[in-house]
């Protein structure tokens, strides 16, 4: 048995003899590491969520909505303000460079749709064929809306997976007729499954129809609910945003100094928006983690100092029978490191548990990540060394004769 192994065993034996002290120190570290772990998991979760959104929408997507809802985070433009028109889309296509595609969109929610004796309320989108590529929202079965459908204002539609489930159950919808506000439409396709949006909306609960049909057969909406644009080169997104803004402002005859009557949203805005939701929680957890790790460290120093005084005789007799200063230092450092690591492991478990609870309560998206484990181990080892070295040195440097005074 090498000397360091013997001293390590000795260190463990001494800790086993003082479980309350060990437990209190461990708890301090555990609290700090738990908040650190949660902070990292929540950050990771937020990052993942943001990236999911950006990936879902594509990094080239630029949305223009009526009104000024840019910072409200509302899922769709406010209908109170009517400003965008199909001419805006044409003007953008004509006057702005770096545009890959642009499409006008009209939509209304809560529209009644029937098939036989089945009934549902859903969102109706009036779109053009380009919309499918811009939003990456093509058919999983059947055909998408065609140019002819637009020209003839055909009563055709594609239904989302939720609508399919509500109206058709397990039966085949393509070729069937459904009634949107009592107007019969032929189902020519099913939309790809998209799941729930970042705003928590079911993106499969929708029907898309030609924008011309939307206007002629269903709703007399002259104005658009949004314009969706994809740019060619995402690196000049900012310039394109300004160009689009200028074109629309000119068309809307907005005087210099007056605010826009529309709002634009880039992938960066989405990132900012998604982060904003988690940021305050991340800041809070970072603060708690920092403070509690510091408190844990100070606790370690204090409890170890008290322990060194209380164990003066132990130190003295060890020195008398042959322990070197370094042996005493090792013993006490080892204690700090063990306690800190055990606290770290406990804290990581608590932190993982906490972040799972946070995400299951939908307080924050959080993701259990090995980074957190690494950060815990690093931070608690660091704490042990930084805050343990002073008491351990004090123990090692006691003069044996002083330590043996009763």
């Amino acid at each position: 048995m090498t000397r360091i192994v013997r001293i390590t065993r000795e260190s463990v034996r001494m800790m086993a003899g003082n479980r309350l002290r060990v437990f209190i120190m461990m708890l301090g570290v555990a609290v700090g590491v738990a908040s650190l772990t949660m902070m990292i998991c929540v950050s990771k979760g937020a990052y993942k969520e943001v990236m999911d959104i950006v990936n879902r929408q594509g990094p080239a997507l630029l949305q223009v909505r009526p009104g000024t809802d840019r910072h409200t985070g509302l899922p769709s433009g406010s209908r109170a303000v009517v400003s965008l028109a199909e001419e805006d889309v044409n003007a953008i296509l004509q006057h702005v460079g770096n545009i890959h595609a642009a499409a006008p969109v009209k939509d209304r929610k809560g529209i009644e749709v029937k098939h036989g004796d089945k009934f549902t309320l859903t969102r109706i989108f009036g779109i053009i064929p380009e919309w499918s590529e811009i939003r990456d929202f093509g058919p999983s079965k059947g055909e998408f809306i065609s140019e002819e459908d637009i020209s003839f204002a055909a009563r055709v539609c594609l239904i989302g997976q939720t609508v399919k489930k509500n109206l058709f159950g397990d039966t085949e919808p393509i070729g069937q007729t459904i009634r949107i506000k009592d107007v019969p439409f032929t189902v020519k396709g099913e939309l790809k499954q998209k799941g729930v949006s970042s705003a928590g909306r079911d993106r499969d609960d929708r029907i898309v129809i030609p924008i011309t049909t939307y206007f002629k057969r269903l709703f007399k909406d002259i104005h658009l609910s949004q314009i969706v644009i994809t740019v060619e080169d995402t690196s000049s997104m900012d310039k394109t945003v300004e160009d689009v803004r200028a074109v629309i402002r000119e068309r809307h005859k907005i005087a210099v100094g007056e605010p826009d009557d529309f709002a634009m949203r880039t992938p960066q805005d989405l990132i900012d928006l998604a982060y904003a939701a988690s940021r305050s929680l991340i800041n809070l957890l970072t603060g708690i983690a920092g403070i509690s790790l510091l408190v844990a460290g100070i606790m370690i120093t204090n409890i170890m100092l008290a322990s060194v005084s209380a164990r003066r005789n132990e130190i003295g007799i060890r020195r008398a029978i042959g322990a070197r200063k370094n042996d005493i230092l090792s013993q006490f450092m080892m204690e700090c490191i063990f306690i800190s690591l055990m606290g770290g492991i406990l804290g990581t478990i608590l932190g993982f548990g906490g972040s799972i609870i946070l995400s299951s309560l939908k307080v924050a998206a959080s993701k259990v990540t090995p980074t957190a484990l690494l950060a815990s181990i690093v931070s608690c080892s660091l704490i042990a060394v930084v805050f343990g070295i002073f008491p351990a040195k004090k123990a090692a440097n006691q003069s044996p004769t002083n330590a043996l005074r009763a």
Partner: protein
Amino acid sequence: MIKIKNIKKTYTKASVSTPVLRGISLSIQRGEYVAIMGTSGTGKSTLMNILGCLDKPTNGQLELDGVDVHGLDDDALSALRNKKIGFVFQQFFLLERTTALDNVLLPLIYAEKYPVDAVKRAKKTLVSVGLEDRMEYLASELSGGEQQRVAIARALINDPDVILADEPTGNLDSKSTNEVLEIFSRLNQEGRTIVVVTHDRAVAEHAQRILELKDGQIINSVANSKLKNSSDH
């Protein structure tokens, strides 16, 4: 075995110097059993700590087993204490929540090499001080006399050149005192060098030679004439 020459020790506290040892010279032969006597506060423990390399003299020379201790660094002194010196203190200084056996094993933790037969050796040593049925007791569960015998076993485990005992019976009743003194006598008969510090003449009289310490100096060094009688009880 032990040779000191003109040892002086002065404590300085808040710029007040208190000379405790004022030039002590003595030599102790291998196999000797020596008592250092003196009233409380005369510097017996101070001298003992210097002999045991726990403390350094302000002045003077200490030679242990032919080695001048002066030039040794702290680690070397620790190794020397581990190998050559066995301490026995008035307060026992056992690790309380630790078994008698583990207490006896303690010096081996700091030994150069951990012997493979460590536990066997520790048990044998405990048997030799009459604690064969107390090995697994925690120190805190033992009587004072038993604790001091564990401490003696701990001092013996590394087969030291000398046992230094500072008031070893100071906290013991007369029965335990006799047990401890009998162990010392037996160890001495087996050839072990023993130095006992005490203020108690009855204890000192178990030694072969008695040194009297007063005012920081040795005032008397006599061979013990009563040694024969003392082995009666």
